[in-house]
C-alpha cells in the first residue's frame, strides 16, 4: 500500500506530510497543461463499469408489503419543534428583520446585532461577509447615533449596495465579440445562453462546447431554433476546444456580432476539467486577439457558501469577468452574490429570473440589496 500512496500524492505543495519520495509523474500534468497540444482527458460515462462494483449479496431487503415499502422516520422531540419553527421560513426571515428593526432603539444593543447577523446568514450571505457588514453598520450607527429602525435599514441597504456595486455592462464592442460561458453543472449555462441571444444587440452565433453531457448539444440547438441563431456543433465527445476554434472561424467568416460559447458544466475541484477550460480559453485567444471578451460564470442563486469556492476557482482558471446569478425566481434570495462580490471581487452582471427567453436582466445593486433587506 505504501507505494500506492506515494505514487498517488503527486503535486508540488502536496508533499507536506507525505513521503519525500517524489512520485513518478510530478511534472507530467504541468507539462500537459502548458503544451498547446494537450488533449483534454475525455471523461467517460462508461457502461462498462457495470461489472465492477457488484454489491455484496444480502444488501437488498425484500419487503413483502406491496404498498409503500418505505420506512418512514418518525421524528419527535426537537425535530418536530424545529419543523414548526421553520414553516414559511422566508416570511419569518423578513418578518424577523421587520421585527428587529421595529424594536431597534440604539446601536449598543448586542442582541439586536445578533439578530441582524442571523438574518444575513439566513440569506446565504455567509459568516465572513456578514460579520464585516454588521461591523460596518454598527460603527456607522454608533457614529451617526441612529435611533430608528427605518434609518438603520436604509443604512443596511446602503452598505450592501456598495458591496455589490461593480461594472455591469457587457463588453460587446468587438466584431465578433466572444463570450465564454462557464460554471458548475446544473447552474444554467445553456439556458442563459439562449436568453443572452435575445438580450444582446446584433446577430448572435452559438457554439456547442458542452460535448460531454448527454443531449447538451441538442439543448443548445433547440435554443438556436427558437432564437434563430446559428449553432456550431460537433458530435458528442468531440474536443471542446476544437468546437470553439471552429466557431470563432465561423463567427469571423459570417461576420456575426456575438459568439456565445457554451461549455460543459464542471465542478471547480476537477483539475483536469479546469485545465480543459483553460485550453478552450487559450484556443479562442489565439484565434482572435483579446478574446474571449467576456467570461461569464453562472451561479445558481440557491447555492450556499460553496459559491465562493466556485467563483474563486473559475476566476483563477478562466479569468471571470462577471457573474450571472441564475434561478432567482425560486425561494433563494441569492445572498451568496454579496459574498462573491465582496470576497472574490468579481462583479455580478446579470440576473436570470425565469424560464422564458426574455427573463434576463442587468444586475442592479441597489434593487438587489433592497430585495434582500428591504421592507416587504
Amino acid at each position, binding site marked *: 500500500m505504501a507505494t500506492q500512496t506515494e505514487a498517488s500524492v503527486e503535486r508540488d505543495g502536496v508533499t507536506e506530510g507525505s513521503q519525500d519520495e517524489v512520485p513518478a509523474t510530478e511534472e507530467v500534468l504541468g507539462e500537459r497543461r502548458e503544451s498547446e497540444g494537450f488533449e483534454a482527458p475525455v471523461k467517460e460515462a462508461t457502461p462498462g463499469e457495470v461489472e465492477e462494483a457488484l454489491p455484496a449479496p444480502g444488501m437488498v431487503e425484500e419487503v413483502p408489503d406491496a404498498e409503500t415499502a418505505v420506512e418512514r422516520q418518525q421524528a419527535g422531540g426537537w425535530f418536530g419543534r424545529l419543523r414548526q419553527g*421553520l414553516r414559511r421560513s*422566508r416570511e419569518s426571515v423578513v418578518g424577523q428583520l421587520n421585527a428587529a428593526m421595529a424594536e431597534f432603539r440604539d446601536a449598543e444593543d448586542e442582541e439586536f446585532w445578533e439578530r441582524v447577523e442571523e438574518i444575513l446568514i439566513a440569506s446565504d450571505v455567509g459568516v465572513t461577509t456578514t460579520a464585516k457588514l454588521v461591523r460596518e453598520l454598527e460603527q456607522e450607527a454608533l457614529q451617526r447615533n441612529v435611533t430608528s429602525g427605518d434609518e438603520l435599514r436604509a443604512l443596511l441597504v446602503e452598505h450592501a449596495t456598495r458591496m455589490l456595486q461593480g461594472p455591469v455592462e457587457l463588453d460587446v464592442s468587438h466584431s465578433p465579440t466572444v463570450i465564454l460561458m462557464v460554471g458548475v453543472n446544473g447552474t444554467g449555462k445553456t439556458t442563459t445562453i439562449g436568453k443572452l441571444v435575445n438580450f444582446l444587440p446584433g446577430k448572435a452565433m452559438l457554439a456547442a462546447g458542452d460535448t460531454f453531457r448527454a443531449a447538451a448539444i441538442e439543448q443548445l440547438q433547440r435554443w438556436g431554433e427558437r432564437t434563430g441563431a446559428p449553432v456550431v456543433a460537433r458530435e458528442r465527445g468531440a474536443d471542446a476546444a476544437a468546437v470553439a476554434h471552429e466557431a470563432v472561424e465561423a463567427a469571423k467568416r459570417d461576420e456575426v456580432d456575438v459568439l456565445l460559447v457554451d461549455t460543459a458544466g464542471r465542478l471547480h475541484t*476537477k483539475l483536469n476539467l479546469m485545465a480543459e477550460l483553460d485550453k478552450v480559453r487559450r484556443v479562442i485567444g489565439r484565434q482572435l486577439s483579446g478574446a474571449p471578451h467576456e467570461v461569464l460564470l453562472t451561479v445558481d442563486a440557491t447555492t450556499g457558501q460553496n459559491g465562493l469556492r466556485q467563483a474563486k476557482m473559475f476566476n483563477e482558471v478562466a479569468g471571470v469577468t462577471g457573474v450571472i446569478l441564475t434561478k432567482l425566481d425560486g425561494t433563494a434570495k441569492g445572498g451568496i452574490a454579496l459574498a462573491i462580490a465582496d470576497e472574490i471581487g468579481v462583479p455580478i452582471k446579470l440576473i436570470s429570473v425565469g424560464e422564458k427567453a426574455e427573463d434576463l436582466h442587468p444586475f442592479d445593486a441597489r434593487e438587489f440589496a433592497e430585495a434582500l433587506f428591504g421592507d416587504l
Partner: protein
Amino acid sequence: MFDTLGERLNAALDGVRGSGNLDEDQVKKITREIRLALLEADVNYAVVKEFVGNVRERATGAEVSKALSPGQQVVKIVNEELANLMGGTSHKLTFASRPPTVVMLAGLNGHGKTTVAGKLALFVRKLRKNPYLVACDTYRPAAIDQLQQIGRELGVSVYSEGTEPPPEEIAERGIKSAADGGYDFVVVDTAGRQVVDVEMMQELQRVRKAAKPHSVLLVLDVVTGQNAVEVAQAFQEYADFDGMVLTKLDGDARGGAALSVVSVTGRPIRFASEGEKMSEFDYFYPDRMAGRILGMGDVLTLIEKAEQQMDREEAEADAKRLMAGKFTFEDFLKQMQMIKKMGPLSGLLGMIPGLNKQLRGAQIDDSMLGRVEAMVTSMTAKERRNPKLLQNQGRVRRIARGSGTTPQEVQKLVKQFNEMQKMMRQMGRGGGMPRMPGLPGRR
C-alpha cells in the same frame, strides 16, 4: 474561511486539552466555533441554533467520562448529535412484492435528476433488477434526449412520448408499459421546478397521484444553501417524498443543507451521487456524512473500498515479494490498477483523516495515474519483470513513443521505481525505515 468544523474544534479545544472539566466559558467558546462552522457549511441557521443548544446542554451536563479528555468528549458529543440528526442508519432500497417497483424523482432545476435517473437504473441492475426509465420532463429543451442517450449508454429502455402529453399521463402509460414489458423497476424522471411555481408543484402532485410510486426521492444538490429548508418543505407538501438523493458530492461543498433538510422533514438521505460516471452512486451512510461535515475524514468508506478491491492472500504474497526486493513493474501496475478501481484519487485522499488539512488547495489529478499506467503498459513483459533493461536508451525511447510521453518522463519513472525498490529491499532486510534514523530495524 474554509476551515472545516474538525479544524475549528481542534483550534478551540487546544486550550482546553489537559484541563479536567469543561467550564462554562470553555463550553461557550466551543459552541461558538460549532455554530460558525455549521453556518459556513450551509446548515440552516435555525437548525444550527437547536443543534448548538443540544450540544451545550450535553457538554455542560453530567456526562463527564474518565476515559476521554474534555476535548475528545466534545468531539464525541458533536459527532453523535450529528449522526443522530442525520438519521443514524443508512436506508437501503426496498422492492415491491408485486413488481414493478416505481420510484419517482423530483427536485429543483439543475440538481441532477436526469443523471440520477440513469445512475439509479444502473444501481438496481446491479441488484439484479430490470430497470425502465420514464421521461416526464416535457419542459427543458432536450431533457428527453438526455435521458434517451443515458438509456442507450446503459442499455436501459426509456419510455417517452415527446413533450406534448401531460406528464402525469406519460407517467401512467410508461409504468403500464414497464409492467407489460416485464420490467420490475421503474424510474420516473420529472422536470425540475421552482417551489414558488404553484402550477408546476401541482403538476408534480398529479404525476405523483398517477404514478403511485413506492418511493419518491427528492434530488438535492449538495451546494444548496439556507433555502434548502423551504425547498424541502414545499416538496414534502406537494410530492410527499420519503427520502433524498444528495448529488454532486464529489465537489468540495460541505453539505450542511443535507443536515437541514433531514432535520426539518424527518426524511432520510438514501443515496449519495458523487461523480460524472454512471457508477458513482451508492447508498448514503449518515454517520459518514457527519464526518464530512465535521471534516474528520471518512475512514470507514476508505477501509471498505480498499477491502472490496483487495484480495487478502494475494496482498500478503505481494508484500513478501516486495520486501524481498523482488518488486517489479508488474506489481506496480497491479497496485495502480487497484487504486484506480477504488475511485478518484482526490476522493480517496479526502477520506483520510488529517490529510484533508494538508491537501487543502493541493490539486490532485487522476489523469496522471493514466500516464504512468500508459508508460508501464508500453513496456514489454520482460522489461516489467527486469527493470534493469530500461537502462537502454532505445527501449526508453520506444516506451515513450508507445505511451505518448517523453523519454525524460520514462527515465524519471524508472529512476523513482529503482529508488523505491531499493528502499523496500532495505526494509525487508530489517534495515529499518530509511531516512528515519530513530527507528530500530530489529527488535
